[in-house]
């Protein structure tokens, strides 16, 4: 049933686009993300039914429904645990995970380090708009200090989360950042993340046109973004990556922050080895209780 990824795919963008009309506001950055994803998937060419696409809750988390993959728009913050269960249950599947900054770094933030350190072959795309979109404009964990929102009318008193730095510290082997202001870059990056064996993280600066901060809109991105390649960044150096990541929130660096040049085996590979190695010792089902007999 499984088709291997191949450079020359027989699938088109439209094979991944569903009929459902997005609920997103006109101009929302998430349109760019889903379009980039269609492109990446069409290049990769796995049939849609072999893809499981999990999300949490939020505007961004509606994304699976706009694809023809098996989607699971689950509950707020729990996309990563669910995706890990799917991957372990069926390692053949291509498993995608997506959601918002609130979903991933606030309520779901406790799952992230563990998903990273287990290193299953998942791709996690966060649409980071520095705001809670779906609930209409509350402070997000990536909102700047001092920002005024409906829940911080007097200004936020907290330093924001730095998702890039966190994920690097957690030991992720593929970490990148993109923006729909650079669609070719974004879709290439998502494609690379999906092809990367092991846990891959893509933070997308995806503007919320309705509630998001002004410096966080497409126009500002187009003006301010700097590609890491152009800065001469070496993506095989985790310490350098962490130092570049410190600029999160001040500079918009795009591209791959870190890519482990020699990807370690994924968790599900190790599990498969273990299963292979142990299956010979399985007691037949009907004799499962024999071990308890005293004799």
């Amino acid at each position: 049933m499984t088709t291997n990824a191949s450079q020359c795919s027989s699938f088109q963008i439209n094979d991944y686009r569903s009929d459902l009309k997005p609920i997103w506001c006109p101009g929302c950055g998430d349109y760019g993300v889903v379009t980039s994803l269609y492109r990446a998937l069409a290049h990769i060419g796995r049939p849609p039914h072999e893809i499981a696409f999990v999300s949490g809750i939020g505007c961004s988390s509606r994304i699976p429904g706009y694809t023809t993959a098996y989607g699971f728009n689950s509950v707020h913050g729990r996309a990563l645990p669910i995706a890990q269960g799917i991957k372990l249950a069926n390692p053949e599947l291509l498993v995608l995970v997506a959601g918002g900054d609130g979903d991933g770094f606030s309520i779901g933030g406790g799952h992230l380090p563990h998903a990273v350190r287990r290193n299953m072959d998942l791709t996690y795309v966060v649409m980071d708009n520095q705001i809670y979109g779906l609930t209409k404009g509350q402070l997000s964990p990536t909102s700047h200090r001092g920002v005024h929102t409906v829940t911080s009318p007097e200004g936020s008193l907290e330093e924001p989360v730095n998702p890039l730095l966190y994920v690097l510290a957690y030991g992720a082997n593929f970490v990148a950042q993109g923006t729909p202001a650079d669609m070719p870059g974004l879709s290439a990056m998502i494609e690379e993340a999906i092809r990367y064996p092991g846990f891959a993280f893509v933070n997308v600066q995806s503007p919320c046109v309705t509630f998001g901060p002004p410096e966080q809109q497409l126009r500002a991105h187009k003006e301010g973004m700097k590609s890491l390649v152009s800065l001469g960044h070496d993506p095989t150096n985790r310490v350098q990556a962490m130092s570049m990541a410190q600029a999160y929130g001040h500079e918009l660096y795009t591209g791959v922050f870190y890519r482990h040049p020699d990807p370690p085996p994924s968790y599900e590979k190790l599990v498969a080895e273990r299963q292979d190695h142990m299956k010979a010792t399985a007691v037949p089902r009907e004799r499962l209780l024999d071990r308890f007999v005293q004799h």
Partner: protein
Amino acid sequence: MSDLVIGMAGAGGDGIIAAGESLTVGATLDGYHVIMTKSFGSQIRGGESSCRVRVSATPIFNQGGVLDVAVALNWSDFLKFGAELPVGPRTIVLYDSESHLDPAVLPVEGYSEDRAFSVPITEMARKSGGGDRVKNMVVVGLLTGWLQLAEGPTRKGIRKRFGAKDPAVLAAAEKAFDDGRAYAAANPIAALPGLGASGGAAGTNMLTDGNEMCASAALFSGCTFFGGYPITPSTEIMQFLSREIWKYGGSLLQAEDEIAGIGAAVGASFAGKKSMTATSGPGLSLKTEVLGLASIAELPLVVVNVQRGGPSTGMPTKTEQADLYQSVFSSHGDVLRPVLAPTSVADIFGVTVHAFNIAEEYQTPVILLSDQEIAQRKESVEPFDLSQFPIVSRREPTAEELEHYQRFRLTESSISPISHPGMAGGSYQGAGIEHNEAGSPTASGVMHARMNEKRFHKFAPLYERRDLFLIEGDPQAPLALVSWGSTAGVCREALRLAEDEGLPVKLLVPYLLYPVAEKVYQEFFRGVSAGLLVEQSYQGQLYRILRMVLDLPSGFESCAHSGAIPFQPSEVVDHLRGQAEKLGLLEPAAAAAS
């Protein structure tokens, strides 16, 4: 005497648990029915410990009450266990002569001086060459001697236990055991006449606990995914599966918390696999939100909740039956989630298989409500035929159904064929959001009402499952007992006692606690005028739940108390007798019995 309860306590390092286990293994090998429970002080390690071993020639269903034999390696530790090691006037009290106490002045309440015996346990241990470490084996020798248990099986048990260690240790242990037996032979106790033949086939019975039995049943049911987080007293389920599940092509995730544990299990089920999580109260509380997700997304899942004392962290090592409300009613919105409960190590196997089958059949999370007593006690179990348990798997769409596939199609049974990733043509959106038949989000009140109806109506056949109830006693009896979980074992024995004294009683034990199969109860209660629902929770939770949908007989009362201290069969019979008296049932019933 064919049924004896032995209770022992000692300091950390006294090996009182090892003594109990050796005795338990020996008696099981010899074909007796055995139940062993353990209890520890609050120290993590090295504190006082105790165990109770009940041995019987006839089937037993609970750990028993007042001790027939009490063994105190030292009194201060023994007394710390209070109500868990109750001594009465008929208890044979054996204690280490090291205490230098006269049998007349023992620091325990309610014993009889003429049944108390100072025994040179430490002295014998030291003499045997093994030192204080083998005091426990002296105890095993003494007990097998006085109870006239066959020597062979217990020795075998000791060898199993110590065989892997230093041969000198084994030799010392055996020597201590022999010395204990010799002492018993030389100093017979008239009040302790020996157990009598087991009557059971030797060397065929199983010996295990509820957690391992439950985990085995999961494997038997075809469970290939477990996601969970350690918590007492459920962790042994995960531990068992972490040794075994890989062999069956399955996998296990020790998650970062309970939410991730059930999340992963829901993911595995979405991916088409039979899946499970296990926890205890605090963990169940955390899993509430994802449980609701599994219900609306109609995903099969078995959630084992091994109850301990609550609320909150409560009493992690004590049993209670107070998580029933939580199991039935938690998670917001209108949800029906089946709840099943085993009553013993023996029946948790079948009940677990039922749980998986119901989860798969109805595409629903199912809660298997075990309790600490069942989960952690060692019980001898007669072998049974596993082929009696059919295995059910979720209904997948046919090729034809996949043509215009709708995941949540409104069918006559309200069960919709379920696809999974990898199945061509079956793609859909699973969601916690209310959805239409195709799985797309909806905010239509009409669709919401229809989907709620579907999610309740699909369980209709479950209300007819008479096989999920155990009924014992005279079907015409006007007195009724209802009980569940480990307390049901108490009531099964209470029923026998009550029958013996001529009380007209019958017993209903639901394995299916929820939904309430009204007809089964209505039939059972026909002609009943009084009775008791016996359960270990302050509120009497099942009693209240039954009232929600049933008009109970007017004299049918809740008999409930907080956990940790088990009910006794005699206590239940006392209540029943009181009810019978009030109703004027006593004379004719007694007459009928004579």
